[in-house]
């Protein structure tokens, strides 16, 4: 396959350059605004406050948990969607990618109606076991998985479709079982995409707000993640809200840098 020749020295057309610069400003200016509001003098105190530390720990733990659940459930789903031509495949694909488009608060409400204490499925579970998802740590994880897993599924399914299946065919012809082929040939070959999908799902979980506040509520140390802490702190303590926002920008930057080789290569 030939690549188009790169003409780096070419002078960009004025209109493209202008619009491109407007685009850059559009993203840069909000961060300038944020940075100007950062309470630099007492930043350490604010960021190390109990509310912020609790929220940071909860965010990191729940996002990591959610990303792992996304892998365990999402990879098999992506494989089925890519490889098995079953009836209703397009409907299933639409269903599992719907949360990418759906406002998260709608997802949270749907989760509540399904798994709340009086929900269609949560009700019988509560009556039998007194276990409830809302207002619990697991409620946060469930909300995160709901909004984040589509990103992993889409990434992994795309990788599976782009894969040269002759390697899998060769392994199968040598007598490797279908599960063995999946485990020892397919998975290693989609490794980089799986990693990217994992980080995307993790990052989406970290930023999750709407579904979490609607389904899991807001309690410091149990369900109050960083975005929720920013939202409630904005109503009282601007400094604290801005400091948490800065913390989230830093974490997001770290993720981007970690992914640099994946997305910025070439």
């Amino acid at each position, binding site marked *: 396959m030939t690549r188009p020749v790169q003409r780096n020295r070419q002078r960009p057309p004025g209109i493209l350059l202008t619009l491109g610069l407007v685009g850059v400003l559009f993203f840069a200016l909000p961060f300038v605004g944020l940075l100007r509001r950062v309470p630099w003098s007492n930043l350490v105190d604010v960021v190390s406050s109990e509310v912020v530390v609790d929220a940071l720990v909860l965010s990191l733990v729940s996002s990591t948990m959610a990303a792992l659940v996304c892998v365990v459930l999402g990879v098999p789903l992506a494989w089925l969607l890519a490889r098995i031509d079953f009836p209703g495949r397009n409907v299933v694909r639409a269903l599992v990618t719907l949360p990418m488009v759906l406002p998260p608060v709608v997802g949270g409400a749907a989760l509540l109606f399904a798994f*709340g*204490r009086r929900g269609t499925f949560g009700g019988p579970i509560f009556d039998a076991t007194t276990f409830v998802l809302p207002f619990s740590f697991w409620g946060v994880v469930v909300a995160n998985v709901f909004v984040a897993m589509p990103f992993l599924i889409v990434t992994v399914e795309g990788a599976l479709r782009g894969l040269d299946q002759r390697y899998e065919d060769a392994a199968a012809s040598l007598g490797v079982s279908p599960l063995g082929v999946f485990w020892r040939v397919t998975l290693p070959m989609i490794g980089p995409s799986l990693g990217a999908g994992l980080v995307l799902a993790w990052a989406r979980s970290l930023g999750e707000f709407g579904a979490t*506040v609607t389904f899991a*509520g*807001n*309690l*410091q140390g149990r369900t109050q993640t960083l975005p929720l802490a920013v939202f409630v702190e904005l*109503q*009282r303590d601007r400094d604290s809200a801005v400091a948490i926002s800065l913390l989230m920008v830093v974490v997001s930057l770290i993720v981007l840098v970690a992914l640099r080789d994946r997305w910025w290569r070439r």
Partner: protein
Amino acid sequence: MILTGGALTSCGQNDAALQVFAASSLAGAFTELAETFEEDHPDTEIRLNFAGSSSLREQIEDGATVDVFASANLAIVGQLLESGALNNKPRQLVANTIVLAVPASNPGQVSAPGDLQSDDLAIGACAAQVPCGELADQAVEALGYDVAFDTREPDVRSLAARLEDEELDAGFVYRSDVVGSDGALIIAWDGSIDRTIYPIVAVDPESDRAGAFVDFATGPDGLAILEQWGFERP
């Protein structure tokens, strides 16, 4: 000026729209209040914006277009006066009290604040950052023992909705939320918690229409509507 007017018109706004910002707890009452006012003043259209009072204060400080502001406590209006975002004298609108409310079916069988010490109950309050949460904390402090909350909601309407859905067994909401719930909520305990006063203020002292709305809300017709929604005279 002409340009600005044109831009506004193209966004579907018009000069007659009166922007009213009101605390979440006033949502039901102010919707009816605005409808009645519009009937009496056909040339005035009212746009309502409901949110937690602290959140509305932030919006006003950040330069939101607002003609009338009704807050759930005096301190928030005081902060606006102090920061210079507001320079008109607020008036007392109504009084409200925090009560311990339970769903009408009372799934947790809560009848006294002492019942809140049970670990099996799902109990909610507003976040400490908004007035209803501050009052809930005061109420709990007055009780003299800890209450293990399961959620601190960002505003009182979302808390009331969780109670109405029976996702919570009990919660500290305003008396007006119980009255406005159409029987979905009942008061389990109504202790001796201080009343809180809601102020209302016309943000621009020169605006006749904003002044007219404030006069209407604090006048006999406005108070009658507010009382129907569970608020008390200040």
